[in-house]
């Protein structure tokens, strides 16, 4: 082999990101195969969407709502369409099996960072789920009569911001959900771990009740937590109830939380692995 040929082969060594991109892509492609689960999810999400919109629009008719009825509809449909990007309870069954059987430790025989590896696979799985569910929900909900209709944001800039916020929401949700997997690794009770974390995140992110409906004092506290950017920020940007300029502070706060939660989760995972030696033979 000539020198130039071997140089080009050396240059072809995959980048340090290749392992994580590979894991991400594999989960994404596999996730797209779960169509029946997605179809069932879409049906459930329409049902929930109608109930939530009915309830909160009733508040609006009584003059008790901080959001107008059309904002409520867009908020709820966006939430339902991208639910698997932003809820903690959307779990990776295979990863949970690895954790409860103790096989998780064997993942360490690969030359990759375990936290980054899990992060990549969870993000891939969530994107696959969202890709299957979001379009049918948004397309159909876009055809509903007012005030039930899913509407586009007021302008293109706001739409772009809402998409950025959705990406931040997905990144934050994965980093928060990883704490449930880490807790499961310590307690070996994945169900308990998710039961602890998922409802907390749902309430604090505005999934059960949009945050503007909550008492001011409580709302001001919740707006400081990482959960806010997991749903409230993208859904209210999209529905137009939050202006672009008002979104800067929550954006910065969400990003700051991400920069805290990722290293924290990484440290927690390696501590949990050390605490849980896998005995055997």
């Amino acid at each position, binding site marked *: 082999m000539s020198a130039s040929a071997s140089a080009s082969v050396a240059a072809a060594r995959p980048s340090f990101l290749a392992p994580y991109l590979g894991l991400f892509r*594999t989960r994404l492609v596999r996730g797209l195969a779960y169509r029946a689960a997605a179809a069932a999810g879409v049906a459930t999400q329409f049902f929930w969407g109608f109930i939530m919109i009915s309830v909160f629009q009733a508040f609006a008719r009584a003059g008790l709502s901080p959001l107008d009825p059309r904002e409520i509809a867009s908020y709820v449909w966006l939430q339902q369409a991208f639910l698997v990007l932003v809820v903690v309870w959307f779990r990776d069954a*295979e990863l949970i099996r690895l954790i409860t059987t103790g096989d998780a430790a*064997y993942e360490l025989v690969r030359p*990759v960072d375990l936290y980054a590896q899990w992060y990549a696979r969870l993000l891939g799985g969530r994107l696959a789920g969202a890709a299957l569910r979001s379009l049918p929900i948004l397309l159909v909900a876009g055809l509903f009569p007012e005030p039930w209709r899913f509407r586009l944001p007021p302008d293109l800039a706001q739409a772009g911001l809402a998409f950025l916020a959705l990406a931040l929401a997905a990144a934050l949700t994965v980093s928060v959900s990883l704490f449930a997997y880490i807790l499961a690794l310590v307690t070996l009770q994945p169900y308990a771990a998710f039961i602890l974390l998922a409802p907390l995140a749902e309430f604090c992110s505005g999934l059960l009740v949009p945050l503007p409906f909550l008492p001011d004092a409580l709302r001001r506290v919740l707006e400081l937590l990482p959960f806010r950017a997991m749903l409230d920020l993208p859904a209210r940007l999209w529905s137009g109830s939050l202006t672009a300029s008002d979104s800067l502070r929550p954006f910065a706060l969400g990003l700051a939380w991400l920069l805290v939660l990722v290293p924290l989760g990484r440290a927690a995972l390696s501590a949990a692995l050390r605490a849980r030696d896998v005995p055997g033979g």
Partner: protein
Amino acid sequence: MIEVRELRKTYRVRRRRAGLGAALSSLVHPEWSVVEALAGVSFSVAPGEIVGYIGPNGAGKSTTIKVMSGILVPDSGSCVIKGRVPWKERKAHVAGIGAVFGQRTQLWWDVPVSESFELLRAIYRVEPAAFRKRHDELVEALGAGELLGSPARSLSLGQRMRCELVASLLHGPDLLFLDEPTIGLDAVSKLAVRDFIARENRERGLTVILTTHDVHDIEALATRVILIGRGSILFDGGFAELLAPRRDKGVERALAELYGELGIA
């Protein structure tokens, strides 16, 4: 290639007694017992050796393998493999070793085997050309060609083990840990696995550490055995030498008698 000195590892195991009363009291006063898995283990392995690492269930074999493959941190002692301490430089260390754990899979369960291999290429960051060459050699040597399109979950144990062996060597390591690679395999697959390991050792100088309960694996492959019992090394030398006084009884019975005499059965 491998230098292991005075390796110690104890596990804390939660003790549970039978009955409702005991279950309730363990909520308040959990009882722990300490299991000494490795009680000062030392050995060294030279490049190109095939070492059979044997001993009864619970002797500490898998624990040693886990320490050497960087997934378990010992309590004390040292282990240096190719100049690195596995648990201190884990990523650099594992990039240069292969490992097959017979009772677990390193293939992705619901993904076609070929995709698992492709993913391993990304994970080990192997150049495409080198990967292709190594891949084709390994697949051919193990007759795994027709298995590539199936997901791991639909393979039989023997088929899966062939794919596991391909997977463990795709990145071209010169050291391979095999933890019970022939467990549950039929005669044909067992022979295929043995022949393959012998060939990789002969032709590429692959160093192999093999744990197994199948004495025929040891007989066929290992020129040297290390016997571990209750966390200590009891013998290190030739297999024939180990069984010499009992040879006429057949290897299986001879080994069982030896375990009995050593009080480690």
